[in-house]
């Protein structure tokens, strides 16, 4: 009797753990990525939320001709009837682009059971006039961008701007984007952050 009782508790605990695990985020950069892509995968997550099973993927392609160019593409998919359908995609290019993938966040900021995605990249990191940074946030498949221009050595001041669209977002998400940028600015010592 006691054995069965212990067993029941054990099974309930593991069942509860499973239930909680229904929403999940999993880094799949070193696994098989279930969608086709060109170039090199530099950031990849699989995640599940109330809107279904999703794939977030960023790839990088280098072109040497006619001029050196690095292209990054960010794509998000949702699984529908067994196939992954594209929800959104973004493309950017420059002489060089660095994705700071340790800063990538797949997170439910507004607690609605659907994950937001946030990633950040730097364009032309070593360019003498300075570098541009972009934070790309997706909320319900709509893009919101934070743009920063960090001035080069001995150049003018930098600039920092939020898309106007940010004002249409829940305040918690706008605040998250501001804090996210301020953390990037701090860790990379850019001296360019939003004031409170």
């Amino acid at each position, binding site marked *: 009797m006691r054995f069965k009782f212990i067993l029941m508790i054990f099974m309930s605990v593991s069942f509860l753990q499973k239930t909680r695990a229904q929403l999940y985020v999993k880094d799949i950069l070193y696994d098989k990525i279930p969608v086709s892509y060109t170039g090199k995968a530099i950031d990849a997550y699989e995640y599940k939320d109330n809107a279904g099973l999703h794939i977030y993927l960023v790839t990088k392609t280098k072109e040497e001709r006619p001029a050196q160019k690095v292209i990054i593409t960010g794509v998000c998919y949702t699984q529908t009837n067994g196939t992954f359908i594209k929800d959104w995609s973004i493309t950017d290019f420059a002489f060089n682009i660095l994705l700071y993938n340790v800063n990538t966040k797949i997170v439910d900021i507004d607690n609605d059971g659907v994950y937001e995605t946030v990633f950040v990249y730097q364009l032309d990191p070593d360019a*003498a006039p300075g570098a541009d940074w972009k934070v790309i946030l997706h909320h319900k498949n709509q893009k919101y961008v934070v743009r920063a221009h960090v001035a080069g050595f001995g150049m003018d001041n930098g600039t920092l701007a939020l898309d106007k669209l940010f004002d249409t977002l829940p305040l918690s998400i706008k605040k998250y984007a501001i804090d996210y940028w301020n953390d990037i600015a701090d860790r990379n010592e850019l001296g360019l952050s939003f004031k409170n």
Partner: protein
Amino acid sequence: MRFKLAVLIFMVLFSLHRVSAQMYVKDIYHDKIPVDYTGKLRDAYEFIDAAGLHLYIVSKTEGEKPINRISIFGTGYTRVNGIFVKDWSITDFSGLDVLLKYNYTKVVDIDKDGVYETIFVYQLDPNNGLGCTWKLMLHYKNKKYVLRVHVPSDDDDNYNVQMDKTFDALPKSVRKYVIDYWNDIAEEQDLKGRYILK
């Protein structure tokens, strides 16, 4: 009987799953850091491996007197009897700047011996127009191995890569990992006069 056996197998498998999850690496940069550090925090990880619970911390100070010196401090700790004891520490400085490239930090068990290696990368004198120096610090069993790279401001200047001689004493897999990792960084950063290590 068969039922009990099935349950037992299930429970054993479940515990095994737990055991394999005991090794972990956790970014604690935004958490409370359980040790004191000098200056401003720049990077922090907690990790558990076969040698115990460890911390890796990097911090930085600016504007030291009498000269305006910028210093970086890296430290590794292991918890012994509830106290974090220092395993290794490094210090470096510059009169211009030292920038930790935190996105290149790795806590990884390269040679699969159940003990994590740490790698961190920083740039001395970045963006000053005269070239800069990159350093990659590997700690393997609490011993330091350094890769130093001088990147020139233009292609005429010399591109210089120095690997500590002690690298030769490392397991081949670890040495290869460091070389490949540096080459990836040089490629990704599009470093001028890029030099491919063999």
